[in-house]
């Protein structure tokens, strides 16, 4: 049963610390998405990749956030330095990049910045 995996599932950190979240997309999927979910903003797209190349990161605060795909099996989202307003659930999703491009979500990383 193919699924998107994310680590860690939960992360508590202090303001100013670096946070790295990891995602393993479904094998064979060539699009990867990072979403953030908060009570106030709901679900919003941060960045997405096709064939490991970043296509859209306009939703991401550039000064502190960075997203990369070192290889086809790993996507990372880093926050440095973290701030309390970054507290949210971060989802990774992957898709096939085809016509209908259904996206399959990972279980999310709940980040709490104190």
């Amino acid at each position, binding site marked *: 049963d193919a699924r998107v995996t994310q680590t860690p599932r939960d992360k508590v950190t202090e303001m100013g610390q670096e946070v790295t979240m990891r995602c393993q997309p479904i094998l064979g999927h060539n*699009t990867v*998405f990072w*979403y953030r979910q908060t009570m106030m903003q*709901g*679900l*919003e*797209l941060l960045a*997405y990749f*096709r064939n490991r190349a970043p*296509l*859209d990161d306009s939703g991401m605060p550039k000064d502190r956030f960075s997203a990369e795909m070192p290889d086809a099996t790993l996507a990372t989202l880093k926050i440095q330095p973290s701030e309390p307003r970054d507290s949210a*659930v971060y*989802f990774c*999703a992957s*898709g096939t*990049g*085809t*016509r*209908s*491009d*259904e*996206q*399959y*979500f990972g*279980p*999310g990383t*709940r980040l709490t910045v104190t």
Partner: protein
Amino acid sequence: AQTVTQSQPEMSVQEAETVTLSCTYDTSENNYYLFWYKQPPSRQMILVIRQEAYKQQNATENRFSVNFQKAAKSFSLKISDSQLGDTAMYFCAFMKQNAGGTSYGKLTFGQGTILTVHP
């Protein structure tokens, strides 16, 4: 830019009954996809059903069906024979399709509707 609106923050239904969740969207695009996702307390986002805008026939998946009204930009979800496991937050989402037939990939979500199924 596209917007998706879910006007019902919360809904409740008795087990075995039918409930309809509303969704409207605003877009100038003619080709796009619409989705309903379910998020149970486990927080996992699960795809429930998908509709291509070029198809007039409403999509169905077992107990789940949609009423897609393209001219009215409305996309409601009907859940028949509601079960306790249907209790979740439901999100309506929009995805633009580009001229080449592939998608832009970006999902625009509504604010969600919390559905509670009572025994």
